[in-house]
């Protein structure tokens, strides 16, 4: 077992995570600018390429922004629970969501259940007024009230922190990088070469050639860097959601126990795939989760998440030993 980190206040953790994610966005923007500048200089198109890439990436994401939540809910086979006359078995779930909604001051989201024995949950929706939270039937069965509260707290925190919007923002930036790099590489290898050898633009041939090489290198590595940063942002927002959940429940042990239960469960969530993995509270693709610290993960390793919660437990007079 890892040793507990020094007890910390959750306000500081929250601030740290927010700061980190914005720094990362800044990094992506710089990468995009560098790539755009190099390509623009090398091809003579200037900033037109970057602008076009941003516009295209933006329009590609617009659908996701408005209809993404419906798509995800439908593709996971989620069924909405009527909040007026809920079936008895879901009363507790709705009560817990109501509790977290009160604690956060957010409007009550729509609540869905996915019929799957693997315990997991996700939240989606472009803003708090259009939010949905989904849990699997497996999660409802395997968790007690305290754990469920932690999970719902985490999911509602994603909504309250506008994480869906945040990921779309990152997605647009990273998508632009990918588009721009792709266009440039095609342009270079399939017919753009002649243009450059005309040497009409820019300074002497030497400078243009160097710029071209720089652009080429960037076009290859920028999408990789972009993807890595995107995953780092995702991990940062997941940590933020964990600590924000504690701000709501004031019960770090509850969420920690929930994470432990999900991690120990051998079941595989059948409806999840690479496209939706980042939305769930714990990465549902088992092979990803068992790897220790990796920069290709959408979520921090569970042991690390539990360690952070352990560090907060002392603040609330809780015994971290209960986590298991």
């Amino acid at each position, binding site marked *: 077992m890892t040793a507990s980190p020094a007890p910390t206040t959750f306000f500081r953790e929250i601030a740290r995570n927010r700061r980190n994610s914005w720094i990362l966005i800044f990094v992506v923007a710089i990468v995009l600018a560098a790539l755009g500048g190099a390509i623009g200089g090398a091809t003579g198109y200037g900033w037109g390429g970057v602008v076009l890439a941003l516009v295209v990436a933006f329009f590609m994401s617009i659908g996701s922004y408005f209809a993404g939540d419906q798509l995800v809910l439908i593709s996971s086979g989620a069924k909405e629970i009527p909040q007026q006359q809920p079936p008895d078995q879901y*009363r507790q779930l709705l*009560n*817990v969501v109501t*509790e977290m909604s009160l604690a*956060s*001051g957010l409007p009550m989201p729509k609540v869905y259940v996915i019929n799957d024995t693997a315990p997991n949950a996700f939240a989606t929706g472009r803003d708090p007024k259009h939010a949905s939270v989904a849990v699997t039937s497996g999660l409802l069965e395997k968790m007690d*009230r305290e754990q469920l509260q932690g999970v719902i707290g985490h999911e509602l925190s994603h909504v309250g922190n506008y994480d869906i919007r945040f990921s779309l923002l990152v997605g647009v930036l990273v998508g632009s990088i990918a588009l721009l790099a792709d266009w440039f590489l095609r342009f270079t290898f399939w017919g753009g070469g002649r243009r450059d050898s005309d040497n009409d633009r820019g300074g002497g041939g030497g400078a243009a050639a160097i710029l071209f090489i720089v652009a080429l290198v960037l076009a290859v590595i920028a999408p990789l860097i972009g993807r890595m940063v995107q995953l780092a942002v995702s991990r940062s927002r997941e940590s933020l959601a964990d600590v924000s959940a504690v701000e709501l429940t004031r019960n770090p042990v509850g969420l920690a126990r929930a994470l432990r239960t999900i991690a120990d469960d051998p079941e595989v969530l059948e409806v999840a795939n690479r496209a939706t993995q980042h939305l769930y509270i714990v990465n549902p693709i088992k092979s990803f989760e068992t790897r220790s610290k990796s920069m290709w993960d959408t979520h921090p390793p569970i042991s690390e998440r539990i360690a952070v919660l352990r560090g907060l437990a002392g603040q609330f007079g809780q015994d971290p030993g209960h986590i298991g």
Partner: protein
Amino acid sequence: MEPIWIVLIILVVIAAGVVFIYNGLVQRRNVVDEAWNQISVQLKRRHDLIPNLVNAVKGYMDFEQETLTKVIEARGAAVSAQSAGPAGAAQSAQAENFLTGALRQLFALVENYPDLKANQNVLQLQEELTTTENQIGFARQHYNSTVRDFNTSIQTFPSVLIAGMFGFKERDYFQIEEADAVVPTVNLRDEPPQAAPPAAPSA
């Protein structure tokens, strides 16, 4: 540019800043008021649930009439304390706390009645009461967050200037007195607190 224009521009910018800050303070204050109302809503919910609970268990718990009566009386005291409004907040908090203790005692007794324990109605009511307790707690917690936010705005520069100018006052946190913070293990033979502020109920 002539000086008069510069002065005008500066004045406009300052005015815009004042409006912006003022609106922010108003918004935060309204959030505080709303959060306070939310607490009252949750308390009322609990008061409304209790008669149902008592009715559900009445038939089974013939020997516990005294307990049931105490619960009803504690509820009554809480309802009248709440009707005093924000002025009676301290008494209300105390009455609610006493009611919480009485309910816990009642549910402890339910453990002795296997028929009752398995009764769907009772289980549901138990869940409803649990969630109501939680919702009250979270409503209070959220209220305190909004107060913190509002008070911080009032205290920090530059909003502190605007706040002073327009008379925005700090709000009080919802606090439970030390003695009440630990829910008393109520002996249901005690009387629930009367309207006048009493000492903490004896154990």
